[in-house]
């Protein structure tokens, strides 16, 4: 498997998805297709942020990444091979691509944290001592070892979110997909989450998150994907994609503050008639990006 590793771990070709009630939805005057012709490529080991307004189709798209949803038309490639939706193949797929849902209560069921995190590894059919090691490591990795014996219903929202992540991390997926991981977390919770993600990334995991937070995506991602009305509008390097103001606005997104500040600076500099050197077209953007990276917690 290592020998013919594909550069792209996931690839979507012209994905279309309609929910069951599509005709009803259409009669209500709402766009019937949750996804209409999505194509994208995810590089192995990259950090990807999917951005878009409410109802753009981010959650629907992420559900395709681990085979939970089968596209109405179009094709999904996992590690260069067309996806197989047979029962057995999907179980294998779900282990390789771990999915953390938007709402942790959709994923947590067991009475205590330790037991809940053990659920995934048990399903992989590992022997009990292996399961125990994995659970302990996952809890350590997510910094919630101290919660191991807690009943799950006694946890705060942020803690439940971490438990949901630990439950997926314990399965050691190659790709980790997180649907709005920062929603509902306080600033320090967001920083903790970013630390956790950095650790997982250092281990070689490919990370995909969906978010509305343009600043977070700008500072964190190697690559951003902008969605609107069930389609991918742009995919590319954050600095380049996100400085396209009309495109961002049409996708219900603000500009990240570093870019906005850069713009403001530039206008004011022009106002003061201080000219930048012509041979440094990107220096301001790079400078601002550096500021932004520095403004986050060290990882």
């Amino acid at each position, binding site marked *: 498997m290592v020998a013919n590793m594909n550069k792209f771990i996931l690839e979507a070709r012209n994905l279309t998805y309609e929910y069951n009630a599509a005709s009803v939805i259409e009669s209500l005057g709402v766009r019937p297709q949750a996804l209409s012709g999505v194509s994208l490529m995810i590089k192995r080991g990259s950090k990807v942020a999917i951005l878009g307004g409410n109802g753009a189709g981010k959650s629907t798209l992420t559900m395709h990444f*681990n085979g*939970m949803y089968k596209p109405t038309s179009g094709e999904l490639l996992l590690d260069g091979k067309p996806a197989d939706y047979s*029962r057995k193949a999907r*179980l294998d797929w*779900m*282990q390789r691509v771990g*999915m953390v*849902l938007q*709402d942790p*209560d*959709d*994923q947590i*069921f*067991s*009475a*205590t944290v*330790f*037991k*809940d995190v*053990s*659920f*995934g*590894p*048990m*399903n*992989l059919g590992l022997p*009990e001592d292996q*399961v*125990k090691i994995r*659970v302990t490591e996952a809890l350590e990795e997510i910094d919630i070892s101290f919660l191991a*014996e*807690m*009943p*799950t*219903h*006694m946890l705060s929202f942020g803690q439940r979110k971490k438990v949901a992540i630990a*439950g*997926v991390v314990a*399965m050691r997926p190659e790709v980790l997909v997180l649907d709005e991981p920062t929603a509902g977390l306080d600033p320090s919770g967001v920083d903790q989450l970013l630390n956790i993600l950095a650790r997982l990334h250092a281990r070689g995991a490919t990370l995909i998150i969906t978010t509305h937070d343009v600043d977070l995506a700008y500072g964190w991602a190697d690559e951003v994907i902008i969605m609107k009305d069930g389609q991918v509008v742009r995919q590319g390097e954050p600095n380049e994609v996100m400085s396209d103001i009309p495109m961002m606005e049409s996708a219900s997104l603000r500009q990240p503050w570093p870019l906005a500040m850069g713009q403001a600076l530039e206008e004011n500099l022009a106002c003061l008639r201080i000219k930048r050197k012509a041979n440094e077209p990107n220096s301001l953007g790079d400078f601002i990006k550096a500021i932004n990276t520095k403004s986050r917690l060290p990882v």
Partner: protein
Amino acid sequence: MRLIDTWANINNWRHHPIEVIYLSMGLLLLAMILPPMPGAALVLLTVTLCALFGARIPPFIFFRVLLLPLTFLLVGSLALVFSVSFDQSTGLEIAFSDQGMQTAKTVILRSISAVSALILLTLTVPLTEIITLMRRVRVPNALIELIELMYRFLFIFDEIFASLLKAQSVRLGYRNLWLSYRSLSSAVAVLFFRAMDRARRLESGLESRGYSGELRVLNVRRKISSRFFIFAVLVHFIILGITFITI
């Protein structure tokens, strides 16, 4: 409900589920078979001491939980104490019965001490441990999973319902009795749909973690403390002993 569960998970005896189950089941048996005076009274005393000083349940919590069945018992045994008869000549007659009083005392004492033994169990052993034990004594898997899911869903229901009630009351849905009826009935109706939706989403969420029809988790194995066990056996025999001496 939340209160009981919380204490079950943080009390001093939480690491000794098997011993506590043995202790309280034994006490329950003693309360039922021994003559209520002094047997049941001794059980009640023991349970109280164990809960307050052994498991370190705050007295406030313990007595509050105990009070609930006690009120039911007291109300119920009124029927034993008073006998109501209806006669053509004398009309309705309510009489205090001495013998009934005696029966009521016995019944109350016996039941409250039996119930207290169960309360000791529920307050000191987390349900998760009881489930683990059930699994070990080979209770059918389907039944255990049902209990586990119900346990989790009880709290989810509770949360959904609380948030629905809050959503309604901040918009004055409970301003008067008529509105309260309406709000409550629509909350119950919505609870049903929300719960169905929850169940559906939970299933697909679990599927993404490799769920294929069987909820298997790793259970922590507990070491049984022999000192605790001897303590439990001693307690049982002391109660037995005192009862036989005083009869």
